[in-house]
């Protein structure tokens, strides 16, 4: 091993240090600044001659020129192993639950993975097997989840399994397998491995185009703009439009094995809500507590800015780790704008030439690289695993023409625009049905998937519904300009058909026990029913007759949304709707 590089602090501006080094230093290398007995973690972000610039993941108060620095010889790494699930970490993967005291202490770093817990290990590979990075050697049960112990991702050669330990109880640091490389050298493998977060884990065979849909239980997403498993989407919206409520709804209901929530530069009380509620709430699909499938990476807005940037990478790496085990991971990051702002603060201190709105020039590249880490993959053993990624964006002043929103829009396939107008009218979720889109609706793979799963005409029905909404919006504008009497009756009918779709399908009560989550089967049933009514040519005497009829209809449909699927109550309302329709058609 080479001798450790050390250095001395030469300059300080806020959390940016200039360090004079005495040896080799790598871009993105981690170093520690000695402040008395505490060590402050920092990352090298630029090297000029003998001087390295480093961003400190802590407050730099009290540092002086001349303070000693030691370099770690590696980039920012996370530890991967059993025990990640249900944990609460900060952006650098320190376990928040095991920290002492009410306040975060400078330089206090805690173990992300418990070293004492023993896990029941079952071997999967046997002596003589040829293996490489990401191949499964054994498994342990991490609560309810099968957690595969893999060949470390850094071991990319081909190895022969010399030995896999027998079934039994082991702690994470015990050797569970020994691998031999082609030079005959043995490599012991434990249950825990390290990985630099800013690098994507690519220990898989291939990354095909997404070919199935991830259900979220949110109708405006699943029915109108579905997101693919392994897909990418983002939710931009001004404050107060329900970004967080929508993200929490997705976290609670999405069809994924594990959820990683990266609270990136947002309010601490929102994370407290997850800490408080998720251990109590039950996942309707599995009957288990939501916390059992959730890992929280929490760097709230008052925590050090540099660690905010690290937090999204930490979260993504954990998702990729579970993907390599063949699981479906969902990453929710709230909000990626705060991450971009952290980049801006740093770039500004380094006196780089700024791009638009003072953001760094390479912002679009950074964002698209990051989103590209999501995806569904075929593993070496033929199984699939996925990382689906939905980020929120907080555009300044609610204006979508700003660099973070624009760059993210280029990098993602689903766009869920939250509209101030809908939020003001309390039409939640405030996802704008016209501005939002899902590119996956155009994927032949997804079209085939829907044809098999739901029905051959489903995709066409989605486009048909979108068209009713568009026509309704156009009619509404005309009615507003010309007055109720100034337009033909058809305009009113168009408008009310779109209102029917809006109220019954697009709007959803996130706080109602039943309406909050709608399984696909129920979505299909209700949507087909609504569309069938839109297709009918119902005659009305005048616009008042029309609005009165649709108001009544919407009211009964809403009661249906609040009732258990196919229950007595549900069917009673359904009959009521039939009667309303028959009455109208006969009259």
């Amino acid at each position, binding site marked *: 091993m080479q001798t450790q590089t050390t250095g001395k602090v*030469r*300059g*300080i*501006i*806020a959390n940016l240090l*200039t360090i004079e080094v005495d040896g080799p230093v790598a871009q993105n290398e981690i170093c520690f600044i000695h402040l008395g007995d505490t060590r402050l973690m920092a990352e090298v972000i630029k090297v000029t001659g003998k001087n390295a610039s480093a961003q400190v993941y802590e*407050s*730099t*108060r*009290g*540092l*002086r*020129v*001349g303070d000693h620095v030691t370099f770690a010889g590696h980039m920012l790494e996370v530890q991967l192993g059993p025990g990640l699930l249900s944990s*609460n970490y900060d952006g650098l993967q320190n376990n*928040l*639950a095991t*920290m002492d*005291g*009410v*306040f*975060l*202490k*400078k330089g206090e770093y805690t173990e992300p993975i418990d070293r004492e817990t023993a896990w029941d290990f079952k071997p999967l590979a046997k002596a003589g097997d040829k293996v490489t990075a990401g191949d499964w050697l054994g498994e342990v049960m991490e609560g309810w989840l099968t957690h595969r112990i893999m060949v470390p991702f850094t071991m990319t050669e081909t190895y022969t399994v010399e030995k896999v330990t027998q079934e039994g109880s082991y702690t994470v640091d015990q050797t569970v397998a020994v691998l031999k490389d082609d030079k005959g050298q043995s490599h012991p493998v434990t249950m825990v491995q390290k990985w630099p977060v800013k690098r994507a884990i690519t220990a898989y065979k291939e990354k095909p185009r997404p070919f199935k849909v991830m259900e979220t239980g949110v109708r405006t997403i699943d029915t109108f703009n579905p997101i693919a498993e392994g897909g990418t989407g983002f939710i931009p919206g*001004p*404050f*107060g439009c329900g970004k967080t409520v929508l993200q929490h709804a997705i976290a609670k209901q999405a069809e994924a094995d594990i959820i990683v929530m990266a609270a990136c*530069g947002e*309010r*601490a*009380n929102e*994370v*407290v*809500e997850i*800490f*408080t509620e998720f251990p109590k709430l039950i996942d309707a699909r599995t009957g288990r507590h939501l916390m059992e499938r959730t890992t929280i990476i*929490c760097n*709230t*807005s*008052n*925590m050090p*800015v540099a660690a905010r940037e690290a937090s999204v990478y930490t979260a993504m790496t954990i998702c990729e780790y579970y993907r390599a085990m063949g699981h479906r991971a969902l990453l929710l990051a709230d909000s990626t704008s*705060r991450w971009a*702002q*952290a980049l*801006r*603060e740093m770039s*500004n201190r380094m006196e780089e030439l*700024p791009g638009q*709105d*003072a953001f760094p020039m390479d912002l679009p590249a950074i964002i698209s690289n990051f989103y590209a880490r999501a995806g569904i993959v075929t593993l070496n053993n033929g199984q699939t695993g996925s990382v689906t990624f939905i980020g929120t964006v*907080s555009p*300044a*002043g*609610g*204006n979508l023409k700003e660099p973070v929103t624009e760059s993210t829009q280029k990098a993602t396939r689903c766009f869920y625009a939250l509209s101030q107008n809908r939020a*003001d009218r309390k039409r939640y979720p405030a996802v704008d049905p016209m501005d939002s889109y899902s590119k996956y609706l155009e994927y032949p793979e997804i079209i085939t998937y829907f044809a098999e799963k739901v029905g051959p005409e489903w995709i066409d029905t989605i486009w048909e519904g979108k068209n009713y909404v568009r026509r309704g919006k156009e009619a509404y504008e005309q009615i507003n300009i010309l*007055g109720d009497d100034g337009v033909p009756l058809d305009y009113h009918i168009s408008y009310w058909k779109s209102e029917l779709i809006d109220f019954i399908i697009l709007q959803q009560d996130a*706080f109602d026990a039943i309406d909050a989550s709608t399984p696909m089967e129920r979505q299909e049933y209700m949507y087909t029913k609504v569309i069938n009514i839109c297709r009918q040519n119902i005659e009305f005497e005048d616009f008042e007759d029309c609005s009165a009829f649709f108001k009544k209809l919407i009211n009964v449909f809403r009661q249906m949304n609040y009732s258990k699927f196919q229950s007595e109550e549900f069917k009673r309302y359904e009959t009521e709707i039939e009667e309303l329709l028959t009455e109208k058609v006969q009259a």
Partner: protein
Amino acid sequence: MAKAFQRIYTRLEGITKATVVLDAKRVMNDELATVDGRLAQVVKISGDRVTLQVFGGTEGIATNSEVVFWGEAPSLNVSEELAGRFFNAYGKPIDGGPEVEGEHREIGGPSVNPYRRQQPSQIIPTGIAGIDLNNTLVSGQKIPFFADPDQPYNQVMATVALRADVDKIILGGMGLTNDDYLFFRQSFENAGKLSRIISFVNTTDDPPVERLLIPDMALTAAEYFAVDKNEKVLVLLTDMTLYADALSIVSNRMDQIPSKDSMPGSLYSDLAKIYEKAVQLPSGGSITIIAVTTLSGGDITHAIPDNTGYITEGQLFLRHDSDTGKVIVDPFRSLSRLKQLVIGKQTREDHNHVMNTAIRLYADAADAKTKLENGFDLSDYDLRALDFAKEYSLQLLSIDVNINITEMLERTWKLFAKYFTKEELSIREDLVEKYYGN
């Protein structure tokens, strides 16, 4: 103020309007210093070259001025003696009283571990229905008034503070006019509650950069009472727009590249560091922050209110209601994000329903008003909605209302019964049976 290990320098290498540069050794980041007797803080170190931000401005400072380094970051002495006192931005008494004895604590300290926070759950009643009924405040919350400069936000804030059931009230005044400062002082004195109040005040007479210290001073005192003494503390910060303006002055002097609206790129983090001090602690203590962000011409897309909105848990809008001549809390644009944690739980079961229905009917009245203005005929319902809106505004939304929440609910039910049928309310049936017309 002289300390044992003082390092004194007498040669400045550069002077700008807000900063001075000199060569000095072993200087600490964030350290305080005095430059010709004026307080300054280290903001940049490059080798031996140190940049100091001079809070009071640099007018008249000469290149041979004496610079004394203190070896510590800005601090405040904390103890029970703080109660009832008035201080300037440096934590020095301005009420003629003695210096406070107590523990010497650095301001702008660390954040609370989010995992150790408790979910806010205690209601803070204010007697103002526009707040208690529609935008209920919860202890541990952070919420600003978004107000135009001509609105009586300081008066409303003083009223809220004096009515709130809290152990300590801490006022952080930034760029207060002397008149407003005296107003606060008099209101607190008249209410006989001076002993519960601590004030840190920077008036318009004082240099603007000094303001940057006010929130941290106020919150260090707040943390002392909330964390060490388990008390419920209410912090009032007015006006945060002037604080942000001071930030932009400093970043400009340091040649930083401005982002939106000439604000520094770090505005979000700078504001979050302050507002996120609001907390409900496991020991029962809490810090609640009510702030004021003045708007220019009601524009909430400006960087200051915009970033604030993303950080705080809602916002309160004041509006002059021309129909009644009262200042009301605008029910449409105001929002308390934490209200659902307490309404219907610590208040009566019908709270949520009454609140939503009243606002919906108030919105109907607004629509009717538009119709009227456009020359369309009004229906009977429209006319009733308009009458309702007027009384609702007068009896409930107006900021001079002072009743408890149950009375607010009863008043609203009376108005419902006076102007609307049960069907028009479309409230859950069992609640209508219980409260309508009773």
